[in-house]
């Protein structure tokens, strides 16, 4: 089922396919229902021209249009939405230069994707109060451990194949599509959303979602059942350490992007811990909403 097919199905379920159909009911005799309401407003009311209601005054005109509403379809969608909305800022701070796991102020930050200086692609995003720095991103942990959320951006160099048991580090890519395929098939992660092409953060690439499996995990230690360092390994960049996963049930969202001028595909990873707090997830999503990848 393609996205366009889904879109057409939603369009087919549109309760008001043509707003002009509302014109007759917008001028019906239910106007009086709202005159009382409008009279409670100030006397400084606007003048409007609405056809049939001309001459009955601005209150009538407004009220007539909103008085009677057509349609046999009622779809309740009104929900309070207090998600913080951040906006990009030009004076971003480089996260890689800050001490890891230290609290950082609200504001705009960027990661130098492969850590090799000014030639690399950058991922810039805005976070609110309460986050901490990581080498290639930032994290928020309202309680401890399994609740954390994070956003990482890096030029992917190697991938663990698989992440647990007889792990080998294999070269990533070279294309974004190849890396996405490796993440889906070689890492041992449980794929919850298959690889699909995507345009994200101003770049072209591929998207998939995954979860860290139970295999090898022993509470509370982590993954001692995995050989080597006792970690469920993920991926690396050339200039900083490997990304590993701490908890089964961690939800991972990946965007693998081909960015002009970068040495390899840029990997964006959003992580949601299995015990994460909803407010933190909203802050993570707000940060993702501001993320821009630039060559």
């Amino acid at each position, binding site marked *: *089922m393609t*996205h366009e097919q*889904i*879109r057409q*199905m*939603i369009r*087919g*379920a*549109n*309760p008001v396919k043509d*707003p*002009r159909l509302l014109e007759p*009911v*917008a001028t019906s005799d*239910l106007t009086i*229902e*709202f005159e009382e*309401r*409008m009279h409670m*407003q100030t006397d400084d*009311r*606007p*003048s*409007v*021209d*609405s056809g049939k209601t001309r001459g009955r005054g601005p209150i009538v*005109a*407004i*009220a007539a*249009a*909103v008085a*009677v*509403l*057509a*349609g*046999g*379809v*009622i779809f*309740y*969608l*009104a929900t*309070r*939405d207090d*998600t913080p*909305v951040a*906006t990009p800022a030009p004076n971003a701070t480089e996260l890689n230069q800050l001490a890891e796991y230290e609290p950082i102020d609200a504001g705009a930050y960027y990661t130098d994707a492969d850590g090799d200086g000014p030639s690399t692609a950058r991922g810039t995003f805005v976070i609110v109060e309460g986050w901490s720095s990581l080498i290639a991103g930032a994290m928020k942990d309202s309680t401890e451990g399994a609740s954390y959320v994070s956003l990482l951006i890096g030029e992917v160099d190697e991938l663990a194949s698989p992440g647990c048991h007889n792990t080998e580090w294999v070269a990533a890519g070279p294309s974004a599509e190849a890396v996405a395929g490796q993440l889906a098939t070689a890492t041992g992660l449980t794929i919850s*959303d298959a690889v*699909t092409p*995507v*345009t*994200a*953060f*101003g770049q072209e690439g591929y998207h998939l979602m995954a979860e860290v499996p139970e295999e090898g995990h022993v509470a509370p230690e982590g993954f001692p059942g995995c050989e080597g360092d006792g970690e469920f390994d993920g991926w690396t960049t050339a200039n900083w350490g490997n990304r590993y996963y701490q908890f089964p049930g961690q939800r991972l969202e990946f*965007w693998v992007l081909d960015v002009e001028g970068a040495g390899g595909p840029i990997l964006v990873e959003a992580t949601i811990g299995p015990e994460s707090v909803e407010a933190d997830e909203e802050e993570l*999503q707000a940060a*993702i*909403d*501001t*993320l*821009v990848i630039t060559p």
Partner: protein
Amino acid sequence: MSWPADHRSRFDLIWRSHRLEVLAYCVRRVSAVDAEDACAETFLVAWRRIDAVPAPPDTRLWLYGTARRVLANQWRSVSRRSRLDEKLRSIGMSPVPDHAVLVVQRAEDREVLEAVRALAAKDREIVLLDAWEELSREEIASTMGMTRAAVDQRIHRAYKRLARMLEPRLMTAVSPPVAEEGGT
């Protein structure tokens, strides 16, 4: 079309040009009673903040964004609801028994709308602005106060999630009875 300097003329232009679009926007999202409140409030906000309303082609997007915030903070009057319900009956429309109830014509539509309703609030709104208001990605970004990239990312993920939800439901809904097979 020029953008009048005079406030009343400007509001009149906004009203004539966009009242049905805003009304449709509200009707698509909430019950009739809530929609009428929201639409009226949206235009009252436009009047009070007439200098903040952008000239075309952004006027409609500003009104959608205002209506979205109004709907998110809506207060409903039970007494007025009952009066309007009565009048809706008189013109052959069913009043809403409950705001959480979907009243739809076709089973497929119901499945689709239930899936859309299961999306996160912002993702849902973006999908509806795309599919129902037929806004471009740039227009959605403007209405939602997001970057174009954020809209791309959210809309991609939302449609993927909808596909995952709808495929099994619709397969079940349209599959003919399967004849029992004998062993071989």
